[in-house]
């Protein structure tokens, strides 16, 4: 079957996927990765000012739903993406690790903003964790103080690439 689309990238991907009898050939792993990468369920996990940008991202103007990522979950049991949006203090660190541990596999972590990535403006403080990668495995870092909603979207799309690429390579994540 001939597949036609305006987009040359999509064209090459589709013709790679579709066999002669209009059958899509793939592996279960790749199929799962495709589904996971296109439907992250983020945990509602705002810690400071960056959370406002995360909320703006989900609201109408930027509309994260366009990418399938809008289902913010209030329970870690339902979420597979932890967006650490804000300043993490040592006081808050144990609850955050607990939330991460309560999330089912597979799960990913985005460090949103300079605070989550490396301590941000509070890097010299005694009470602030100098980057969540001190206590959690971070997949994508988003710089900015705060990052604009577009940057968060870019971060999530980058994570999508990472998830799908890892499955194509046969990697663990």
């Amino acid at each position, binding site marked *: 079957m001939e597949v036609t689309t305006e987009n040359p990238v999509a064209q090459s991907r589709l013709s790679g996927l579709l066999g002669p009898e209009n059958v899509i050939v793939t592996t279960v792993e790749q199929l799962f990765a495709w589904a996971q990468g296109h439907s992250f369920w983020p945990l509602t996990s705002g810690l400071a000012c960056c959370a406002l940008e995360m909320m703006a991202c989900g609201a109408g103007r930027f509309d994260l739903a366009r990418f399938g990522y809008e289902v913010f979950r209030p329970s870690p049991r339902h979420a597979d993406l932890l967006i650490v949006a804000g300043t993490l203090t040592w006081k808050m*660190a*144990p609850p955050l690790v607990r939330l991460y541990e309560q999330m089912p596999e597979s799960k990913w972590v985005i460090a949103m903003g300079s605070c989550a990535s490396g301590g941000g403006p509070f890097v*010299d403080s*005694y009470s602030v964790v100098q980057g969540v990668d001190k206590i959690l495995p971070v997949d994508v870092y988003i710089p900015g103080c705060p990052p604009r909603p577009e940057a968060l979207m870019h971060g999530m799309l980058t994570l999508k690439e990472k998830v799908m690429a890892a499955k194509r390579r046969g990697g663990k994540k």
Partner: protein
Amino acid sequence: MNQVMIETGVVESTPAALLADLQELRDNAAYRFDRLLDVTAVDRGETLELVYRLHSLQTNCDLVVKASVDSAKPEIASVSGLWEAALFGEREVQDMFGVVFIGHPDPRPLLAPEDGFGFFPLRKNYKLPGRSGQAGR
């Protein structure tokens, strides 16, 4: 009550007499300091000065009561039995200055992590570790 003037006075007490003094200020009809606004502390080097800010809804007056304890062994009675508002304030002072409040019903750290910071950030002899200093945590 249209009184807008707020008078503030300062009185010194001692750790031993603190509870009795504050009880008098709260219960004596001439004072009636029925609200505790804040508990905090000041590092004076050799001593730590505990500061209790009182307010009276009846006279609309403020009063600051101070009591000094030894920095090396900072212990003082908890006033949470007189004003429940002291519960959080005393826990904060405990985290930040290392003061032990004897008789506090729930002396868990309030702002510090559960196992404490391991230092007292608002003491003058505490120096910020800087960017690399936290690495050992």
